[in-house]
Structure formats: C-alpha cells, structure tokens
C-alpha cells in the first residue's frame, strides 16, 4: 500500500486531515500514530491566532459545521510546544499553513525550510471562516496562482495545495496549482454553510457561517476529486466524508492516490485504522498487488 505523494513517502495512502487531529498528541493514547500514512497538523500561521468566538461548532444531519477560525500557536509556538512530540514518531508530518496575504504564506512556508521532522507542507487557500479581507484565495484563479508560485519559490519541501470546493470548475484550479509548482493537490476543504436556531432566530455559530464537513459532503467531494484527477498529472489526495474504507476506495477509483480522514476522527478515532485495513483487504480480494492499479480505475464507457 506504499504511495509517494509529491515526494512524501507514505507506508499507506491514508492521512489524518488537517484540523481534525490536532497536533497528534491529543489522539496519541487512542491511535498509534506510527500506523498512519501521514499526519497533517492543524493550520499554522506566522503569528499565533486566537480564532473565532464561541459557539464554534454545530452538528447537523450527516456532518458538522465548524467555524473554529484557525486558532493556532503560530510558527514559533508550533516548533517549541508541538513538534518535539511528533518527532518521537515515524509518521510523516505534513504541516498545513495559511496566511492573510501572499507574503505571509511565503514567509511561513520559508520558515519551515530545514526544520527537522517536517516532511511536507499543505497550503490552505480555501478556509471559509476568516472574515478579514482576501481569504478567498482558492476561489480566484489569479490569487491561487500567485500564492502557489510564491510559496513554491520559498520552500524546498513537498508542496500540497488544498483546494476550495467553493468554485465552479475545480479542475481549473487543480491545473493552476500544478502549473505553479504544486507537487500534489488535496481536496476538498469544507463547504460554506450555516445553521439557525429557530426559537431565538439567531445563527447558531458566533461567526454566523462555517465549513460543512462529514458524510453529507462525500458525494460532492467525490465528483470534485474525479474532476481534479482528470485535469492534472500530479497526485490528488481525496477527502470529504470518509467514514469507512468504502468512501476511501471510491476516491481512489475516481483518481485519488491517497485519501484523508477528517470529521470521522471525532466519531470514532479507530475509523482511520479501519479505513487502512479495509483498503488492504479490498486489494487482496481484487488480487491487486499494488494500489496504483486501483488509482483512477473508474470505468466510464
């Protein structure tokens, strides 16, 4: 089940998705981190960020809407307080990063050069939660091109671009990322959504809107992964509502070379292990000796 995603060697194609697995330590008692294909840590910015007011999360049928607001310890805080713990493990660590401007993205990316224990960067260009101007990078072709190329110039690490689903033609954005130097693309991030308390007639989230994730978005994510995989040659990491090996296998058949499990980690931290085992049994059952035989094997005639 070994895969290589843009230079990141993984022993299996299953990653823990950014924002849902903290910085590893939170789940370390429940899941052996060394079993994961990769761990994508929660988004790091240049400076520490406090994030949004509460309520930050609301469950909806088939998923949840989050408006955490990218709270994080900042680059220095991550290096000092979180990375040492991760270095004890063999799991490849991919750091998700974001910024409020192209320069901030480039600056925080550059800071990770030469940092021991970091195997790749995933740039979040699509988080729909921050209101301060400009963070819809992932919905604007020019801004996407600018951010990706600027970050590419500033990092030697394998670079994954996490795409926003809030676009009409995600294949175009995947192409822009590829052309500007991305080693891989990951998709999808959460969908803009909201929930209302009908008795108080107020939004449930303090931020009013947030990002929808979970089983409800899987069919939409699947279609987008299929579109993106057809548009580029670089590897695609598929995510969105995986709750079992079934959804992960669908992503792979649609063209994903790897997958990420997110919201399901809240439901049951062992799901990510079940996904890995399920992919393995499927390959054995279908007599495939290499997962590459399955990637993009969708039949459409």
């Amino acid at each position, binding site marked *: 089940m070994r895969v290589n995603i843009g230079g990141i060697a993984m022993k299996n194609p299953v990653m823990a998705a950014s*924002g*849902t*697995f*903290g*910085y590893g330590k*939170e*789940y370390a*008692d*429940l899941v052996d981190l060394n079993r994961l294909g990769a761990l994508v840590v*929660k988004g790091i910015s240049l400076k520490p960020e*406090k*994030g949004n*007011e*509460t*309520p*930050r*999360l*609301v*469950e909806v*049928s*088939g*998923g*949840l809407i*989050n408006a*955490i607001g990218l*709270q994080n310890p900042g680059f220095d805080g991550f290096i000092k307080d979180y990375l040492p713990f991760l270095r004890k493990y063999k799991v490849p660590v991919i750091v998700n990063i974001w910024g409020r401007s192209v320069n901030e993205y480039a600056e925080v990316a550059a800071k990770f050069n030469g940092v021991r224990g970091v195997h790749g960067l995933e740039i979040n260009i699509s988080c729909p939660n921050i209101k301060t101007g400009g963070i819809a990078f992932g919905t604007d072709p020019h801004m996407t091109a600018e951010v990706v190329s600027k970050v590419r110039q500033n990092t030697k690490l394998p670079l994954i671009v996490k795409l926003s689903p809030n676009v009409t033609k995600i294949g175009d954005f995947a192409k822009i990322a590829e052309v500007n130097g991305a080693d891989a693309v990951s998709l999808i991030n959460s969908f803009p959504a909201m929930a209302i308390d009908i008795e108080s007639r107020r939004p449930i989230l303090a931020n009013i809107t947030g990002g929808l994730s*979970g*089983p409800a978005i899987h069919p939409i994510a699947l279609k987008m992964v299929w579109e993106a995989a057809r548009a580029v040659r670089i590897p695609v990491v598929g995510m969105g509502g995986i*709750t079992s090996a079934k959804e992960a296998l669908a992503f792979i058949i649609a063209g994903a070379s790897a997958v990420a499990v997110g*919201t*399901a*980690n*809240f*439901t*049951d*931290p*062992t799901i990510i292990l079940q996904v890995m085992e399920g992919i393995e049994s499927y390959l054995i059952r279908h007599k495939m000796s290499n997962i590459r035989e399955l990637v993009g094997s969708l039949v459409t005639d």
Partner: protein
Amino acid sequence: MFVFDTFSFFGKLFLRQYADAVLSVVEKKMHIETVTVLEQKGKKIFGGDYRVLKFASGKVAPRVKPGQFIHLRVTGRDEIVLRRPFSVFKAGKKSLSILYKIIGAGTEIMAQLRPGDKASIIGPLGNGFPMPAKNVYPVFVAGGYGSAALYLLAERTKKKGTLFIGGKTDEDILCVADFRRLDWNVRIATEDGSAGQKGLVTDILKEYLSSEEIKRRQMAFYACGPMGMLEAVAKIAMAGDWKAWLSLDRHMGCGVGACLACVQKIRVAGGRGASDSWKWARICTEGPVFECREIVWGNEE
C-alpha cells in the same frame, strides 16, 4: 571487544523497548472502550426526562477521577457524527454510571438502550475536581443534575459536607438520596416551591453563609450547573475569599483536545494588553473544572 559492544547494543535496544512499553501503559491518559449496558433506570426512579445508564467497563471505569467525563457514541445512526459528553456519576472497578437528560437526537437514542446493548466510550476525560484539602469543609452547589457530576467527589473524599441543590421543580432535584447515604447535609431549593425552599439555590446558599460562625469557616465550593448559577457562586466565593471549583459545560467536537470547539476564555497573568489578558482553554482538556477566578465571564454560549 566485539562481544561487549554487541551486548551493550542489544542491551540498550531491549531496555529502550521495555521502557517504551512500560511508559505506554503508565502514561496513557485516556482509553477507547466498547462497553455493555448493565442497567437503564428510568422514569419511575427519577422525575422528568432523566435516566441513569450503567455500563460494564474494565478500562475506563477504574481510572475515573471525580469530575471527569466520558465521550459516548451510540451506533446505529450514521447521520449523528458527534459523540456526547457525560460527567461520570458513579464509578467502580468494573462499571460506571452516567445520569443524562433526554433533550435531543443523541439522548433519545441512549434512552432506547437496554441491558446487553453495546456502546463506545472514550475516557476518562478532563481534569476533574481537586480533592478538598485537609482542613477545608466542602460545600457543593448543584443546579439540577449537576449533582451527579459532584457525587463521586463526595463519595471519595473522607469528609462529610453540605450539598446545596436547586432546580425549577422537584423533578429536577436529583441524587439527594445518594448524598444522604453518605451522611452529607442536603439543602434544597425549587423555583416553584415543590421541594425544599422556594427560590434559587444561591438564595439558600447566601442564607447559610450569612451566619458569622459559618463565614469564618475554612470552606471551598464545588459547583456544577447552568452558567448563570456558576457565575453567582463565583461572585459569592470571591466576596468571601473562598475558592470555588466550577465544572463547565460546553458543546464539544472531538472531546480530546484536538478540534478547539469547546473553548472558554481564561485569565492570563501579566498580559500587556486586552488581548493578552486572556487565552482559550479547552473545556475537554484543561477543564471542565476551573477555579472561578480563572474564568473570564460574559461570553459563554
């Protein structure tokens, strides 16, 4: 020379693996466990929509400290993606109980559980209450079924204290018999006067504290209930220079400290400006118990 080196190499390898194995058992803070329902006690014993669920548990139950909680998943409804947190009411070497109120989708499913049914729990979670210090008289303040979250502390401390419990009607006054069996003093207030004194729990608490003799006592407060009640207890405690340990409630996502949904503003000493004077604490990890002076009031859900 060669033999000596090989010996010391394997010796060190063995010792490191042994140490890791020992540490991994010693240091684990939380466990995930499939538990079996032993009992579901309902309407005849408790009023209103309250139930007590007892689970057989060998991993989590023996490790529970007073004030900690479990994160429960009941399977069978895939559209419910989140677990539900419950304070541990009673815990022994082989079982634990939770007291819950039927208020929504998740708790409605829990009410259907019968002996022999299985569920999944993660726990024990949270920091729990500190044990009352030697010369300190414990005063518990509970709003409704907050008394269940306090019970284990009463059972495990060797002291006998006083429980003040309040609620809307007599149906909301729970666990009184359990406290009386421990020889605790119990004082009740209900808003409609159907049990104990008519009024709020803080009314009877203030009356108790109005005596000069009581005021001079070394006391500490332990409280669990609605935020409004907790804030009132905090004010009383600070005015009398007593410590108050408050167990906060908050909507949770992961329950283990990764998602940052369940946060509360906590004071930070020596901050330079308004935004430096506080930080977010996770109710599931740094909490749910905080000393009242730590809490920044006024921005809860």
